[in-house]
């Protein structure tokens, strides 16, 4: 209904292979980016930046990382929070220990550190798969968090491993207002999302998907399993690492190892299940959904309890949250295993024909 792509003929390979082949999509994305970069910073309040927008972007990035590994390469990981922790602590250490280290460079180095750790814990994926691998990634989760707690060097000898990061400063400009931090995070996330989108359309991405669909078959047609799987682990961990660094530097300001617990890993996993496994858009949709559900419940449940005259305390609300989370996961897996991204696609296709489907 909104638009049709009729009449847009491609006359060159370049035109045919661009990211958004339909003109209206390009315009839509441009409007979305303009909105995010210009309108939002001008209008949104501090609560929006600190409690919703910045964490949304950071979790989207982490979900993107996990989606590359789980959605595209098919290697289920339950340790994404640990790789975020590696990123956060690595960025902190590069900042603190090297005088005059540019922040962006330390983010990149943090991502690379996380990638290195990711490769290390991805090695078992060459021998094992499926549940065994999922359980093996739990080893990364527990081991890394333990290391960060127990080696005081990693947190610069602070008590119980809590690190407080300095303000981000790039070329003399200090990112101390929520707006500026939002813009920084948004730039990094947009750039990395673009990279990811291109990566999954490239030969690398196709190799990942082949491995996901059936790794023996992929190997038979000449895909190097070791390289492909480890690359997926490395890139996924890179994304998670950068997300972790942003999490510490632009969102919380001070983090502790226990903040990167198994629960966080599950949360990121839920984001990609709800949003859409194997979809870049899905990572964003899922992050928004998982982030907004608790806020929504916080508002709705007390209101509902007043309506029904039932006493509801905060503990009950948190239990209800768990239940709703669990239910949502099961619901999505049963009803729409490809998540919100797929629903969006279906909706678009329906609307294309509406109101005359035949």
């Amino acid at each position, binding site marked *: 209904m909104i638009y049709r792509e009729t009449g847009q003929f491609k006359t060159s390979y370049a035109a045919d292979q661009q990211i958004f082949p339909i003109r209206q999509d390009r315009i839509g994305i441009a409007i979305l980016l303009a909105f995010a970069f210009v309108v939002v910073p001008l209008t949104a309040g501090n609560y929006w930046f600190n409690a919703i927008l910045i964490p949304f972007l950071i979790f989207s990035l982490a979900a993107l990382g996990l989606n590359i590994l789980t959605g595209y390469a098919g290697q289920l990981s339950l340790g994404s929070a640990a790789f975020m922790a590696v990123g956060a602590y690595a960025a902190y250490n590069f900042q603190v220990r090297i005088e005059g280290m540019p922040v962006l460079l330390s983010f990149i180095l943090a991502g690379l550190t996380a990638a290195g750790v990711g490769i290390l814990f991805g090695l078992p994926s060459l021998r094992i798969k499926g549940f*065994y691998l999922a359980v093996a990634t739990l*080893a990364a989760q527990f081991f890394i968090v333990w290391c960060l707690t*127990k080696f005081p060097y990693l947190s610069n000898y602070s008590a119980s491993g809590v690190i407080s990061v300095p303000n981000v400063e790039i070329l003399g400009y200090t990112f101390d207002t929520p707006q500026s931090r939002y813009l920084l995070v948004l730039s990094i996330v947009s750039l990395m999302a673009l990279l990811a989108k291109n990566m999954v359309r490239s030969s690398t991405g196709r190799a990942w998907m082949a491995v996901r669909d059936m790794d023996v078959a992929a190997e038979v047609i000449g895909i190097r399993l070791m390289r492909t799987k480890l690359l997926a682990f490395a890139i996924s961990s890179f994304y998670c690492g950068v997300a972790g660094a942003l999490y510490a530097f632009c969102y919380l300001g001070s983090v502790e190892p226990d903040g990167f617990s198994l629960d966080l890993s599950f949360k990121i996993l839920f984001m990609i299940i709800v949003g859409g496994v194997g979809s870049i858009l899905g990572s964003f949709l899922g992050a928004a959904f998982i982030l907004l559900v608790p806020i929504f419940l916080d508002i709705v449940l007390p209101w509902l309890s007043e309506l029904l005259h039932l006493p509801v305390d905060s503990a*009950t609300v948190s*239990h209800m949250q768990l239940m709703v989370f*669990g239910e949502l996961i*099961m619901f999505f897996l049963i009803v729409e295993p490809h998540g919100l991204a797929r629903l969006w696609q279906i909706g678009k296709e329906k609307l294309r024909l509406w109101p005359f489907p035949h």
Partner: protein
Amino acid sequence: MQFFLEVLIGGLLSGVMYSLVALGFVLIFKASGVFNFAQGAMVFFAALSLVGCMEKGAPLWLAFILAFGIMTLLGIATEKFVLRKMVNQPPISLFMATIGLAFFIEGLAPLLWGNAVRRLDIGLVDEPIPWILEHWNMVISKFDLVAAGLALALVAVLALFFQYTRVGRALRAVADDHQAALSIGIPLQHIWALVWAVAGFVALVAGMLWGARNGVQFALTFTALKALPVLILGGFTSVPGAIVGGLIIGGTEKLAEIYIPPVMSGIFGGNFGGIEGWFPYVMALLFLLVRPEGLFGEKHIDRV
């Protein structure tokens, strides 16, 4: 040497408790190919139901039966509302669904029974056995010994049940091949419901023992995390594997906890306690590199 033995035996006994939880995983995995991450949550739910019934004034045996009834209902509901709707989906989706189920149960249990930490008294005390203390000068907990005995008995009963009863044979048939089992007239859905009920029973026993030992609290769900390395070590499909894996994990974990941190402190300085959290995983991981299917798991052959 004596101290070593004491630690080892303590570890082995607690390892049996891990086996108990791992057993629940194995049962469901064998019968339906579902890797049930919610087993830990089920342990929590079962223990809470047991305590809840006892608080309402039921004696232990009655509370046990009631809790078993509740677990059976939970199992049947899971089969009916979740698993049946997910046939033909890849196992990894089923696994993720059970993570969702775990969250659901973790929210539901305290909502039904309250979230205070409760003591569970099953008439066993956690004290050293005087006779062993006297003659061997070792501290072996009476509770651990009885719990381990109970766990072993349960395993034996289950093994017999699988081997010699009609239902047990049906269960094994389903485990081998769903389609073949269906085609000779085994009601698949009944069997699945049954298996979830049995897993619920195992969770109940595990919850009772763990709950009596550490109090009935949310931390019971973490027993699942303890059982996972046991599973990888023993293999997902093997009941004896769960037992042997539990013993290995329990023993080495306690030994590692005692002997490794001092060595590391010697090298790096500082306190390195709490390696129990990850040591079993790393050990299981290293083990997997050598034997990807676990000790007793079935060797997996890929066909294109």
